[in-house]
């Protein structure tokens, strides 16, 4: 097996895990899943090593059938960064997962134990498939896999509100993927291939209205699945209502899946071809997300809803990379933001879960005294908040730095204003989230295993380290990128 075969391994390992969990039942689910997730992480790192070593993208054609007839998997710098991020978050969520998802030795399988672990592995599998896919239809299947993993995670508790949120999420996500598929169909109809590399070669010589119809359809479909403002209707109830482990996965990873595809579409398939206006439009929606999400987060009274609205706002930053495409820092800034937000947001949701377990609810005014009850979690909470606000030297800061740098070199100062306003709003809502935990107060005694607290802290530290090692990450992101020779006029 060559190192390229690692690509197929990282795809099939979680699948094998799902099968084992389904067959083995809930009893062994935790052990199997954790083993698979550790393996997944190791393989992801292995792919990263291979990419770094060769300095080029690693590709693999399944079954030896080369594109365009066959399906190619391709790992470049972007894939590697996101693969490792996703692997870390998934593993952390697995370790964190509370007893409610475990079955005691000799006990019988429960609904949640079976569902949670197989869905966790499925999220991992789908994320890997999305990060490695180089074929738009293959990516469609991966995207749907992600949806099917994400929707039931929302309503794992089975309360009416979460069921409704899940249904709404499912329907909107389906609408989005239908539009995406429509675009894919048009691409095939025009170019006779779905392979991203091949397509990027073809569209350069034959752009035209059908291409832009396809791109518009795919982009808006993906934006719906990413919950980009104003298409965020499903996100707050879904992410705010799901169990914390699930919310962490949903906010940190799931929305990044469709976003990553958008990046593939704009930066790999039609690089430098779209006019100024499309990018500005996407950026404007991102700006709307930053402002509206930020203000709404400020108004929330429940911690998890606050964090969910903060996700709406943070997604906005991701889309600022599109108007700045072609300028140094746009792509890397967006990807850094995706990774940093993944770590920080996962940490916050998991931390919020622990706090809610202790306090009995996640109302903000009930969190006093958390600093004493859960010192590690509170510490993680503060760190994660700092990253989301973009305080140096966190990953969030480096991401903003890159985006600002791109905005300046593009001469588009308005994005600077947006980013700065977003920073202030983020400071405000994160302050609202963090402050009660630091105030003196009395919390009921609850036995939270230390390990779970450490996981939360580890994720926050990852967000911090991402800033510290941002230079390395930026170098890695550049590997295997198509050379954009022509800049936009």
């Amino acid at each position, binding site marked *: 097996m060559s190192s390229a075969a690692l690509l197929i391994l990282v795809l099939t390992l979680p699948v094998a895990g799902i099968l084992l969990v389904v067959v083995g039942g809930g009893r062994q689910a935790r052990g199997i899943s954790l083993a698979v997730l550790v393996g997944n992480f190791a393989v992801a790192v292995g792919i990263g090593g291979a990419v770094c070593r060769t300095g080029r993208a690693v590709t693999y054609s399944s079954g030896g059938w080369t594109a365009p007839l066959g399906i190619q998997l391709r790992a470049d710098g972007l894939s590697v960064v996101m693969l490792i991020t996703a692997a870390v978050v998934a593993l952390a969520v697995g370790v964190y997962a509370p007893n409610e998802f475990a079955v005691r030795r000799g006990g019988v399988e429960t609904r949640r134990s079976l569902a949670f672990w197989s869905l966790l592995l499925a999220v991992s599998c789908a994320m890997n498939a999305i990060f490695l896919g180089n074929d738009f239809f293959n990516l469609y299947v991966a995207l749907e896999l992600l949806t*099917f993993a994400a929707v039931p995670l929302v309503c794992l508790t089975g309360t*009416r509100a979460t*069921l409704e949120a899940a*249904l709404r999420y*499912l329907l909107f996500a389906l609408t989005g993927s239908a539009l995406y*598929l429509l675009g894919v*169909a048009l691409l095939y*109809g025009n170019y006779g291939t779905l392979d991203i590399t091949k397509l990027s070669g073809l569209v350069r010589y034959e752009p035209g209205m059908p291409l832009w119809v396809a791109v518009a359809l795919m982009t808006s479909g993906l934006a719906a699945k990413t919950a980009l403002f104003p298409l965020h209707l499903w996100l707050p109830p879904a992410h705010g209502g799901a169990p914390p482990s699930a919310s962490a996965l949903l906010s940190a990873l799931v929305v990044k899946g469709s976003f990553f595809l958008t990046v593939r579409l704009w930066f790999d398939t039609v690089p430098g071809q779209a006019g100024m206006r499309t990018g500005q439009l996407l950026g404007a929606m991102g700006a709307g997300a930053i402002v509206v999400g930020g203000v709404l987060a400020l108004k929330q009274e429940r911690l998890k809803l606050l964090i969910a609205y903060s996700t709406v706002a943070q997604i906005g930053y991701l889309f600022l990379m599109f108007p700045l495409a072609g300028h140094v820092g746009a792509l890397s800034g967006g990807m850094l933001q995706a990774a940093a937000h993944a770590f920080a947001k996962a940490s916050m949701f998991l931390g919020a879960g622990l706090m809610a377990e202790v306090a009995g609810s996640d109302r903000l005014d009930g969190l006093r005294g958390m600093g004493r009850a859960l010192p590690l979690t509170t510490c993680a909470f503060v760190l994660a908040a700092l990253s989301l606000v973009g305080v140096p030297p966190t990953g969030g800061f480096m991401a903003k730095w890159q985006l600002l740098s791109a905005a300046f070199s593009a001469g588009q100062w308005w994005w600077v204003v947006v980013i700065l306003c977003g920073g202030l709003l983020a400071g405000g809502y994160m302050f609202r989230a963090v402050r009660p935990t630091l105030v003196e107060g009395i919390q009921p005694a609850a036995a939270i295993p230390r390990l779970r607290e450490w996981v939360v802290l580890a994720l926050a530290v990852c967000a911090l380290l991402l800033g510290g090692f941002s230079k390395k990450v930026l170098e890695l992101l550049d590997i295997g990128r198509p050379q954009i020779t022509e800049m936009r006029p």
Partner: protein
Amino acid sequence: MSEIFGFTAACLVGLGLYGLIVHSSALRKILSFNVLGSGIFLLLGVIARRGAAAGLVADPVPQALVITGIVVAFSATALGVALIRRLDEDDEEEGEP
């Protein structure tokens, strides 16, 4: 000639989208989603038919994509209906305590 179906496909997409927007009940949205999906599949079918070459009456690749797509659409329908049923059951329990 297969353009006729191309137009039909476009209309189906439009119908599906219209239904998705206006319906308040989830079941009808799922139905509309299926209409929308059928439109997309039909478009792929037209593309496949147009790609007839090398002695094949149609390009098999889009056809295979449609088959995969149908499976996915069915899975989505099943999940959606399961959610609707569950919500209905909850309604009943609340209505008849």
